[in-house]
């Protein structure tokens, strides 16, 4: 169940990051939009992690090295443009991956068929904001550009084949890049040119190697459950 853990952790961790915007988003409407996306992802995570074991134990009691999410989703929110850049990279990837899984006959086909509609909306949301920020004011353009540049080195890992997902990863990558390029063109932005992987840790989230901010995120996410095991309301 390597794949369920990988995809489930992607959804869980990104959900938590997006949830951190609650109370901090630039406008109320966006706060609700980001929270809705976070809840969609949490729903996906619950289904996927339940395939592996007890969802609460997996979410709240695992150590950092046991998480199999890509490093992209654990990156801190930064400013709004930074979050949108992360959303654009990830939701484009997730939609294309789930679309392929939904058309296949693997164990994830039913889940993917349901989730792909949610994810299509997440991508739509990210694309609309990318267009508005990129083709907006000089400052919004610059912030969007910075977000895209900063996260670019975490995009190589997305296309590492995940054991148990029978998809053509090369085709997935090419389709992803074509889509990202088209959106950034329209937004008067350019596709970053730097390396797709960092010099040290980037590119190993699927093996349990994570970046420094992830530990702090987990501490916050797991704190309540670890302090009060089995707490509920």
């Amino acid at each position, binding site marked *: 169940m390597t794949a369920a853990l990988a995809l489930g952790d992607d959804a869980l961790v990104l959900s938590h990051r997006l949830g951190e915007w609650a109370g901090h988003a*630039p*406008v*109320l*409407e*966006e706060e*609700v*939009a980001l929270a*809705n996306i976070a809840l969609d992802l949490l729903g996906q995570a619950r289904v996927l992690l339940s395939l592996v074991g007890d969802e609460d134990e997996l979410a709240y009691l695992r150590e950092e090295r046991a998480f199999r999410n890509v490093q992209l989703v654990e990156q801190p929110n930064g*400013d*709004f*443009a930074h979050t949108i850049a992360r959303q654009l990279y990830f939701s484009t990837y997730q939609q294309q991956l789930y679309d392929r899984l939904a058309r296949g006959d693997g164990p994830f086909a039913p889940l993917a068929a349901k989730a792909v509609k949610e994810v299509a909306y997440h991508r*739509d*949301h990210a694309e*609309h904001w990318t267009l*508005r920020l990129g083709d907006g004011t000089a400052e*919004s353009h610059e*912030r969007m550009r910075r977000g895209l540049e900063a996260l670019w080195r975490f995009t190589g890992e997305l296309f590492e084949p995940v054991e148990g997902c029978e998809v053509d990863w090369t085709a997935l990558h090419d389709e992803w890049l074509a889509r990202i390029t088209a959106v950034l063109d329209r937004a008067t932005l350019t596709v970053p040119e730097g390396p797709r992987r960092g010099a040290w840790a980037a590119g190993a989230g699927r093996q349990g190697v994570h970046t420094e901010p992830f530990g702090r995120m987990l501490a916050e996410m797991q704190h309540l459950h670890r302090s009060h095991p089995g707490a509920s309301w």
Partner: protein
Amino acid sequence: MSSGTSGEWPLWEVFVRGRRGLSHTHAGSLHAPDAEMALRSARDLYTRRSEGVSIWVVPSNRITASSPDEKDPFFEPAADKPYRHPTFYEIPEGVRHL
């Protein structure tokens, strides 16, 4: 964005149609930079619990509303003309859905 406030964005009125065959009903309002984003925010704010099959958004400043000052000339004359109301019919027994 961090210093932005919703006051800088125009206000939109949201109308949601709950089911096929019904009319669009005013659901509320929201701030958005343009119509496309207003539609998306409306979807998130007003149709999350499957309330709708169709959404309209209208810039609030494009709505011409009757003013409270004109309430009397607008609506008062209708109040003392009971013959305009279909209340003088005997409803035959057995007629339902009236």
